[in-house]
């Protein structure tokens, strides 16, 4: 029986070794960018992006709450667009540019305005849903023009939070958008 700590494949030397094969024909090499760094890995066809990020890259900030695309906790940005990593296969991401919550304010860097807004507005309690909301809100603030109220409502309705009752999350997103679009689409101002 193979153990999980098999000799690392040179192609994935920086990451955990792949698990044993369930369907040997199903391996693919993928190349993508994750939080700005190039990543090459061997993945099985059926490996979910969420599991790839969490188990293989050890980027555990992306959370899994339902694995069927409803709760939004697993949301990451794929080429700038929010995507549910539990409904995305890792192989689909070859060539893509991925961003996860770890990429927002790496190390000791100051929190982004979105992250700060969640803190200041008490938009989180257990914090489990938070990375998903933060990534969706980040995408909203990166639009060229301020999204209208309906867009914001629509974006938030793709996420479940069981703790906060949403009001403070709405406030946080609103604060972050105000900060970003205060002086018009170009940025800062007043």
């Amino acid at each position, binding site marked *: *029986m193979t153990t*999980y700590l098999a000799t690392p494949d040179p192609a994935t030397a920086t990451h955990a070794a792949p698990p044993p094969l369930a369907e040997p024909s199903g391996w693919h090499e993928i190349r993508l960018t994750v939080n700005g760094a190039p990543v090459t890995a061997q993945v099985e066809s*059926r*490996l979910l992006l969420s599991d790839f990020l969490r188990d293989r890259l050890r*980027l555990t900030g992306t959370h*899994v709450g339902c694995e069927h695309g409803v709760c939004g906790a697993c949301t990451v940005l794929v080429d700038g667009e929010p995507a549910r990593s539990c409904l995305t296969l890792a192989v689909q991401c070859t060539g893509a540019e991925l961003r996860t919550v770890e990429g927002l304010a790496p190390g000791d860097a100051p929190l982004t305005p979105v992250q700060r807004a969640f803190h200041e507005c008490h938009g989180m309690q*257990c914090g489990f849903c938070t990375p998903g909301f933060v990534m969706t809100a980040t995408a909203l603030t990166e639009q060229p023009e301020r999204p209208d109220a309906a867009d914001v409502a629509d974006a938030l309705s793709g996420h479940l939070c069981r703790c906060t009752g949403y009001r403070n999350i*709405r406030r946080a997103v609103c604060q972050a958008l105000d900060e970003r679009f205060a002086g018009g689409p170009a940025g800062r101002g007043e």
Partner: protein
Amino acid sequence: MSHGPQQPTPDGGPWTGRPVPRVEDDRLLRGNGRYVDDVALPGAAEAAFLRSPHAHARIRSVDVTAALAAPGVVAVWTGADVAHLPAMLNREELRTPPGLAELLDPYVAITPMPLLATDRVLYVGQPVAVVLAENRYLAEDALELVDVRYAPLPVLVDPDQALTDGAPLLHDELRDNTAVAVATKVGDPDAAFASAHTVVSEEFRAHRYVASPIETRAVSAQVDPYSGELTVWSNTQTPHRVREATAHTLGLDAERVRVIATDVGGGFGQKGILYVEEMLVPYAARVLGRPVLWREDRNENLTASSHAREQIHRIELAADAQGHLLAVRDRITVNFGAYNMTGLVVPYNSVCHLLGPYRVPHVDIDVVGVLTNTTFATPYRGAGRPETVFAMERAMDRLAAELGLEPAELRARNLVGPDEMPYATGLVDRSGKPQSYDSGDFPELLRRAVAKADVEGVRARQREGARDGRLVGVGFAMYIEATGLGPFETARIDIAPSGRVKLAIGAPSQGQGHRTSMAQIAADAIGVPFDVVDVVGGDTSATPFGVGTIASRALVNAGNATHRAGRLVREKIIEAAARRLGVPADALDLREGVITSKTAEEPALTLSELAGRAPLPGTPEPTDGRHGTELSETVHFRPPGFAVSSGAHAVVVEVDEHTGETEILHYVAVHDAGVIVNPMIAEGQVTGGIAQGIGGALYEEMVYGPDGQPRTGTYMDYLVPTSSEIPDLDLDEIHSPSPMNDLGVKGLGEGGAIAPQAVIANAVEDALRPFGVVVRRGPLSPSRVRDLLREAGRPTAAR
């Protein structure tokens, strides 16, 4: 209240009472949470459970040969393989408090749950086998290869049916399907009913729904090859109980088991009990000699983790001509599901919260908990109170209608007044003592709710009639909540050589912000800055004893333990400083972490000088044998009784007669939880609780078919509200400090969730009053509202 950027700027005032921003947020916002599934255990095997597809069946055979041969599989175990381990019991919850046993002599059936089913399965989702494999993909592949032959048995889903003579018996050792039964009486209810001016009797049903934390349950375990100690990471609300139960199951000494609940992604009661999976994962880690991880998927969470709320109340109110309550009679049936997990907790909570804020001289309540072929039901945020408040508050509205009174007026006439506190109801509380409300001002709660709800405006609109098929209604509901359940909670404080304060509490946080609120309490009690206090909760190695974060108890018990430990440490610090400085203790003061002389200007000593230096070589031996480094205290706070919180909710709704859709126009909640430690956190707790209540009132329902098959096993059909469904809330509060503890605090985690079902049902019925509709159960989904309208003879076809 707005919580803009707020940097606490100590002005000499206490930390308690300020909306101090949470210290836990930064880490969580960077993706540095450490939930169970985030803990990397190199070489871990992953577990997946094979669960019964039948609600009730005999297991004829289990064949694991094919599964064992599947790629990556390490082990496959069935009930026979673990039959030598003791079956699981939530011992603490199943214990009947001696006072209650003496006075009411309740019946409590004990139904231990086998770790894996051996000869019979009792609900869909019951674990039958476990596969351990190199990863979860492979474990789940192999699940499909386990061959189990079942012989289906008759299924009981309805609790009334389960109690009929000749109903199949779920547990052979029991006389019938009764899980618990208890009856209580105050005064002479029969005479009161006989002499009443008006009697209303109704049947109300609280429907089944689930806590559904966004993080599903998860457990991992590892035996340290060096120390032999077993470490278990579990997202439990009660790590010490998990430690005891795991040690019991595995035959270990509890000291050799460490349970860690670092970050928990919401619990709401569902993670407050023990589960068989929680016992089997550490067992596997020991047997396999390698770490083992199990994380539940959402389908498992919805179907196989505990459910809650399903109750039937056959309630009668007797009143005089002015609407004063003379007597209440209620026959309560609680659907327990397949196993009795938590005994009297939920049923007795329902009994002793039924009267709520009202004065009722004569009472006759009995409750029976019933075993059925559904997933076991246990406490969920409010634990028996939302159900009972639904029945009582609906009955109050029926009585108001009968008497032609405004529902708020009927309530006002029956409220216990603030001058009557402490108020004895005549019942006994959950610990078996005479039930007493310690403090509160119920009339003020109601007055404020009425003032905000604009009853006149609603009545005027109702006189105008429906606008475009939309009917407006207003409802009220009130509740009391006995909070701060004992028996104790622990706090240990150590002053580190750096001068930092280490605070360990027995109660973990599932999002309640203990690291912040407990640090506020400790900072005030000791006299140190808030940001030198580090709080650890939910690690059994940090405090050997503890109970947990359940039942609105953490702030009351852990908070007061922290306060007392802090005061004691403060005394020790001042005494040690006095010895060091050779001055009397009462000449010294401790503020912001600095020891000062009350007479001199300059600081005398810092905490780090005191804590760090005493044991160094050359330090004079203290004459009393006590060293400066012993600046530690452990306190077990034992509450003398319950700290009773209370609240009044009001809601204005608009119901669309054609679509059956209910829209919340204005939601008002006025609550009283005594002294508030962190208003921002408190408000968050209230808001979150109400949102869960609104979900239960309008959307969420765990539905079973008559065959015992769950029909709402995913988030596509079990509807948790999103941001679009939860309105901004209109919150207000009053503060009646509790005389039951030094801080004057009361629990508040559950309060928000208690009234929404009742208040929304009352408002919807008020809106549908023109058609004579009576709301008897939830959730008030569009289809159920349309059913009600159809029953009342209204055509509801699309316009």
